[in-house]
């Protein structure tokens, strides 16, 4: 078994979900690392999109902002945010990664506030940014996040970004794009997907070193589970080498 840390495992796990010939819209940090890793390993034809307008750059290093000049480095196109958002709207974006202060069993995300008073919140976060847009339109929205029972909440204080809303067919009925929605939740402990009918989060695989009990203890709601819970695959040596030497040589994201 190779020696690696949790962040490395999450990035590798995220990268493996990205298919060649598909498109992914990424933010800074781990999502960007996952996309870069996928492109440099199994998915050379992965189209990377930055919401601010960078299309298919040859990233020389990790961007600090989804709109900084690295996102158009030797890119195929430097366009507008309106343009990239229209890509989402037309169904041209297959994957994305989001995060948040809270996530519930239907994959709804809170990145706006903690506390009940909207005009005077206890804790104010950045808000949607592009997250609600990504979550509304992307075919397969993924969440990459550390897991604990406060973050994995019975009920979000505020739903910034739609998951499956109240589950079942509530997302389709809301008017959001048909067939889109949460796809994977990748944590330090496990990988979850969503049960097709109820749209509730369920355990798909558990990361090496963690038990089902760990996963359930660190979740504020009841998780469903696949009949057969697998063990999350270890990163390969090649994946780790590419991640460490080509994607994040200064270990900004994967840590020291």
């Amino acid at each position, binding site marked *: 078994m190779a020696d690696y840390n949790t962040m490395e495992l999450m990035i590798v796990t995220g990268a493996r979900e990205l298919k060649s010939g598909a498109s992914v819209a990424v933010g800074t940090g781990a999502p960007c690392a996952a996309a870069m890793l996928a492109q440099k390993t199994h998915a050379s034809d992965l*189209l990377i999109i930055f919401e601010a307008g960078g299309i298919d750059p040859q990233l020389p290093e990790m961007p600090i902002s989804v709109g900084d000049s690295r996102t158009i480095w030797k890119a195929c196109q430097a366009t507008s945010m309106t343009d990239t958002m229209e890509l989402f709207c037309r169904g041209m974006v297959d994957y994305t990664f989001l995060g948040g202060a809270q996530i519930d069993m239907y994959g709804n995300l809170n990145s706006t506030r903690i506390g009940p008073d909207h005009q005077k919140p206890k804790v104010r976060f950045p808000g949607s940014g592009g997250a609600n847009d990504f979550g509304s339109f992307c075919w397969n929205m993924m969440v990459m996040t550390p897991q604990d029972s406060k973050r994995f909440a019975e009920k979000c204080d505020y739903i910034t970004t739609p998951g499956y809303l109240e589950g079942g067919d509530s997302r389709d009925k809301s008017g959001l794009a048909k067939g889109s929605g949460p796809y994977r939740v990748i944590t330090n402990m496990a990988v979850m997907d969503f049960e097709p009918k109820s749209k509730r989060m369920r355990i798909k695989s558990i990361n090496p070193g963690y038990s089902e009990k760990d996963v359930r203890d660190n979740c504020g709601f009841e998780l469903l589970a696949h009949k057969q819970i697998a063990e999350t695959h270890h990163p390969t040596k090649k994946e780790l080498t590419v991640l460490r030497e080509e994607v994040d040589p200064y270990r900004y994201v994967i840590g020291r």
Partner: protein
Amino acid sequence: MDVIDEGVGRLFTDPDADNARAHFKTKSRALTNKLMSLKDAVAKYVHDGEYLAIGGFGANRTPIAACHEIVRQKKKNMAFAGHTSTHDFQVLCAGKVFNKLDIAYIVGLEARGLSSNARKYMQSGEVEVSEWTNYCLSARLKAAAMGISFVPIRNVMGTDTFKFSGAKIIECPFTGQKYAAMPALWPDVSVIHVHEADMYGNCRIRDITVSDLDLAKASKHLIITCERLIPNEEIRREPTLTLIPFFCVDAVCEVPYGAYPGVMAYEYFSDEEHIREWLTVEKDPEAFKEFLDKNIYNVESHFDYIRLHGGMEKMLALRDKELMTTGNGNNG
């Protein structure tokens, strides 16, 4: 939704945004070589009965070579976006390519006069029409580009243009103002002529873009004809110049002078003499039949067509005219 009024024109395409998304889900995002001959591109992507749109503005940066190829391959029963459509319309009418038509501007060639053959076809009763305006069709393409089934605009209200359109009158939920809702238009296939493209379909246009950027996004399949192929490295050197990105594109065809006899900004001016020939010969059906055989049906390629009308010497002269220079072209 309260609909206050609606036009009688039929919609020739489905405005449903989820249905369009289902198509775009299947479109490749891979950076693959899309080079093919124009002949193959038309055979592969232009199908009888489907909805066709043509980029540019009538005889300006319009893919006339592609229009000829569509006629040569005898495509029929198509629906067509008659949007700022002049010489392209004239060519497609010569082949009776379409029998369903969204009209903004047809039959005329602006200051050059009217196409008698196109007018005859439009007066024959063979073509089912819906009426729109230039901006209506631009807005319908914009809605499609935005992935929405309609966009509200403020023209056509109170006129017969509305009455014979497929638009509907609604009210703004914020102001109560009336708006004409324009249904999204997702063409099955479009052709756009550009200055430069790489083999993946990244395109540069050194000209007005008319509605082509929205058209490129709205089209389910897109054929690009280009004056020149350039390497992908050149595209990546200056990504701000890319106006159509590769993943909108299905086929890339290198067709120099592909807008001839129309104008291509900074490249060549229109061949007014030959366009006049089109307008004149149309008046005599027998002569027009011969003309079409000679210029379209019996030629193999756009180069052959150009050879019939002065070849490279003519192209140089048209370049001089475009740039207002005096080179070999004016002596050739």
